[in-house]
């Protein structure tokens, strides 16, 4: 845990976390003196989700996501724990002038006033990342601690120590164009309730997660999304070229394992959340569900390994797209059961 000073001269303990948004949310609350772990923030923000969106392409590949839409996690945690946050977005109208300059000036002013500020950025333009992290993704969250000479001191939750970021990089990253533009989105805490009600927040969050996974009208999200993606994956070698099919599969695995998920597409992180709630409520049912979630995460991980073998073309005989899709279907079935149980358990919990 690296120690660092904010612009107000307060010590800031950097927390290495798996996911950017939950890490930033947890760090903002911890800065205000509330002890919350990353997994807790993830669970209270109802971060767990699934979605496969074939009609939105990112550099030629369809989007697969294992978490809720960027931005919702933070606002849900803020609402459920009773924190008052000030958020600001810069819209491009013909009368709004140079929004890039306004955005950077506002950031500098807030830092001088002694706040730590969360920002949504484009990960490609943050040049402190090596090549393997960088792709045009407009939902990466970071915390700016203070201004330094020609740049800013940045606590990136994905990395295990704070880094320096050039002002020019940050400017580009905040005002990047493309799908889901960040529009210079920034947020900071005005006041936070000193004794947040974790129990009722957890119950609301669990019910919300079950709703999102089980009762969705769209075929591309929730459990229906997993089944849809499984079907697509099984069919893909017949429809697509061999290389393209492998590239699609690699993208799914990448979204599952790489983009700051904490392993197995957030399933392990959610299991950690369930474990914490089991301690909070003293409920053995939740502890069982946490173990079940871990088991599901292990199947997702197995899916990733099978897919990786297909990608590497090792053992062509036994590993097929059908097997990878089949594993996904198993995950869907077990997750359905898990969320139904969780729904029942959450309804009976007393806050």
């Amino acid at each position, binding site marked *: 845990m690296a120690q660092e000073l904010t612009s107000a001269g307060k010590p800031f303990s950097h927390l290495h976390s*798996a996911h950017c948004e939950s890490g930033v949310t947890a760090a903002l609350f911890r800065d205000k003196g509330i002890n919350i772990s990353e997994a807790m923030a993830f669970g209270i923000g109802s971060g767990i989700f699934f979605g496969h969106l074939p009609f939105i392409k990112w550099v030629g590949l369809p989007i697969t996501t294992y978490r809720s839409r960027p931005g919702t996690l933070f606002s849900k945690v803020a609402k459920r724990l009773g924190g008052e946050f000030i958020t600001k977005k810069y819209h491009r109208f013909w009368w709004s002038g140079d929004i890039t300059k306004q955005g950077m000036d506002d950031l500098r002013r807030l830092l001088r006033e002694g706040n730590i500020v969360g920002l949504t950025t484009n990960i*490609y333009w943050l040049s402190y990342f090596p090549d393997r992290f960088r792709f045009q993704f407009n939902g990466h969250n970071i915390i700016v601690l203070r201004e330094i000479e020609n740049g800013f001191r940045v606590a990136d939750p994905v*990395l*295990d120590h704070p880094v320096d970021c050039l002002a020019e990089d940050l400017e580009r990253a905040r005002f990047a*164009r493309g799908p889901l533009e960040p529009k210079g989105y920034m947020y900071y805490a005005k006041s936070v309730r000193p004794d947040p009600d974790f129990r009722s927040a957890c119950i609301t969050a669990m019910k919300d997660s079950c709703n999102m996974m089980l009762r969705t009208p769209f075929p591309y999200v929730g459990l229906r999304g997993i089944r849809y993606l499984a079907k697509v994956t099984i069919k893909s070698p017949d429809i697509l070229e061999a290389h393209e099919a492998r590239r699609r599969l690699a*993208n799914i695995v*990448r979204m599952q394992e790489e983009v700051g998920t904490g392993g197995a597409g957030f399933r392990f992180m959610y299991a950690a959340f369930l474990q914490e709630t089991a301690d909070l409520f003293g409920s053995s049912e939740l502890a069982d569900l946490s173990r079940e979630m871990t088991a599901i995460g292990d199947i997702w991980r197995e899916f*990733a*390994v099978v897919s*990786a073998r297909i990608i590497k073309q090792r053992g062509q005989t036994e590993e097929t797209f059908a097997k990878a899709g089949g594993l996904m279907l198993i995950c869907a079935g077990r997750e359905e059961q898990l969320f139904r149980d969780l729904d029942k358990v959450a309804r009976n919990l007393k806050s």
Partner: protein
Amino acid sequence: MEFEDEIFNDGLSKAYYKHNDNGQYVLEKDAPWAEKVSVALIISSRRALLEEIRKEVLAGRKSPLCYYMEMRQLDPGMLAKAAGIATFRVKRHLRPEVFARLNPSVLDRYTKALRVTLEELKTVPNG
């Protein structure tokens, strides 16, 4: 060393949740093998595509704009938004003969959007 180990050998590690022997979750820093392989495939196919485009530009079949667009991992729609030029015009500018006749003002917009200098934008790295 295999390609996937090479690109993951930069000392910047991410955190992964792991179940330890006591049934508690702890954060760990080793990337799983499946992740390494899939990232390596995506990065190597991206590099191969970039190299192919570079050769086509040198052969005069594509414009240098195409190369820099691919280098920044953009598609014509995103580049059009970033540069403030209509998408159909960006797609047209990917043709070398159209690109060669572009105004300095249009080129200037591209240099700002792609963060390259004007000299760079007119050619591609050779060799």
